[in-house]
């Protein structure tokens, strides 16, 4: 039977490439990102320059279009926004970048806590729904409906409840968790139940218990789905944390910074924009960390797509 071994070795070696050609896809991705940023910058400053040259007005066949949105108050120069980072936010205060950094840390901490809470809740709900179709039919509609309630309306209530429960520091994480548990529930449920029938039958032929089936089959199968949800939840938790901070009176996070710079917007428009940039960076960083974890843990996901 050495013939069959030989043939298999040939087949397997053709799957492994010899020296693969240089991979420029990473370089191309970076180049694309840079190009996109350049496009935004050009559009931003270009439209501002154009509007300024035309006194922020444009006549189009009889009608007059106002271009005030491109003036320096509504849309500051990008250079001004960048400059604002190094300037103090308050009289004699530290530079804005320091203020925003500490605010970002605080908000990120609350977002991560909410992410963990929502992730665990969503995960447990998905497992419950997988094993009890009764629970799924009963509760899933409410889970879905919960997301239609505007979070801005719920946030003040959550703040009050948490204060009454002597857990005021959990208010913002709970609000962040509210946004994160839903994708985790839905995607994890999909991952747990999208197991091929023959794989389940294989387990049945081994007389495996539901717990063994969960641990050895459903959960590994669900991991790619779970990480998709976690990536969504990563950014959602940052949004949730910021929104949660708005009615809570907390000054130390990005929510407080936004309220502050919003109130005094006209005095220094670039500061609010700088805060928006900081919030975006926080969201992106969290996303990148989760995506990195996915790369490390889910090494087979991309392959099965082939």
């Amino acid at each position, binding site marked *: 039977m050495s013939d069959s071994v030989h043939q*298999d070795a040939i087949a397997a070696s053709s799957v492994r490439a010899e020296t693969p050609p240089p991979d420029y896809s990473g370089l191309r991705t970076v180049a694309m990102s840079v190009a996109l940023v350049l496009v935004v910058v050009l559009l931003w400053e270009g439209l501002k320059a154009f509007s300024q040259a035309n006194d922020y007005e444009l006549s189009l066949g009889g009608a007059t279009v106002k271009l005030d949105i491109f003036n320096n108050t509504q849309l500051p120069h990008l250079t001004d926004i960048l400059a604002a980072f190094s300037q103090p936010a308050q009289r004699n205060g530290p530079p804005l970048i320091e203020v925003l950094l500490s605010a970002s840390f605080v908000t990120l901490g609350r977002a991560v806590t909410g992410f963990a809470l929502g992730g665990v809740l969503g995960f447990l709900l998905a497992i419950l729904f997988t094993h009890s179709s009764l629970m799924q039919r009963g509760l899933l509609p409410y889970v879905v409906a919960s997301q239609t309630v505007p979070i801005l309306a719920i946030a003040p209530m959550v703040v009050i409840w948490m204060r009454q429960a002597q857990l005021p520091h959990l208010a913002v994480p709970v609000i962040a968790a509210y946004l994160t548990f839903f994708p985790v529930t839905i995607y994890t449920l999909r991952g747990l139940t999208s197991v091929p029938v023959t794989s389940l039958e294989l387990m*049945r032929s081994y007389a495996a218990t539901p717990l063994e089936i969960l641990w050895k089959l459903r959960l590994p199968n669900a991991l790619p789905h779970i990480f998709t949800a976690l990536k969504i939840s990563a950014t959602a938790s940052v949004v949730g944390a910021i929104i949660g901070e708005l009615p809570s009176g907390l000054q130390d996070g990005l929510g407080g910074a936004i309220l502050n710079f919003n109130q005094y917007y006209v005095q220094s428009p670039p500061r609010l924009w700088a805060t928006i940039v900081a919030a975006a960076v926080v969201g992106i960083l969290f996303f990148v960390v989760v995506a990195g974890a996915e790369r490390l843990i889910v090494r087979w996901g991309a392959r099965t797509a082939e």
Partner: protein
Amino acid sequence: MIGLSAIISVRNLSKIFKGTDGQQVHALADINLDIAPGEFVSFIGPSGCGKSTLLRVIADLTDATSGTVTVNGKTPAQARKDRDYGFVFQSATLYDWRTVLKNVQLPLEIMRYPREKREQRAREMLQLVELGDFASKYPWQLSGGMQQRVSIARALAFEPQILLMDEPFGALDEMTRERMNNELLNIWRAMKNMTVLFVTHSISEAVYLSTRIVVMSPRPGRVSEIIDVDLPHPRGPETRELDDFFRLTGQVRHALREGVHG
């Protein structure tokens, strides 16, 4: 077979499905069959003859509508819980997140084989199917035939008395299939007194592998003929050249035609 106690016994087995249009589908009607230990029994017939359904009822992957099935003196459910058989599906059904070695170890983990022995046993099985060098590869790195060999290694890992195979080589090309047939016979010889139930579409495969062939016909699914295969053992490529081989394939072909038209 008179005098040998049957390891699998089927009596008046019927299986009725409700079809998609509400009509009843008689997948199996009044099947009676005895299988002795150590036999290699093939089930062959056109689509809808119930051969896969019969295998799945024996394996307790689906239940009977009426009649009895006794496996090793027990109900199919009990035989399943006692892990008396291994099942090989038409698709390899390997788990993508496990290496080849870990895939073969899966039943050993669930059946609580002693930890220290698991890896060794899995490696032995991989050697048996001649994939010893691929232990740390992932399923996606293997060809279809190799994946199916891994699934066979996995089915044998816990030394089942009975091996149930549902068109395991159906998705493979003819040459690979013939190689796999040889390997399967080698494995069957190596596992002492293992009973094999083998569902196939291929007449030559059924004749080459089996000690007995159960020819089935559809609508309703039933046994139309049982043919004893008296070809000598051990079998090899030269077996396919024997006059008796051609006689038997002709016999099976005739039985299949009769089953459809008769």
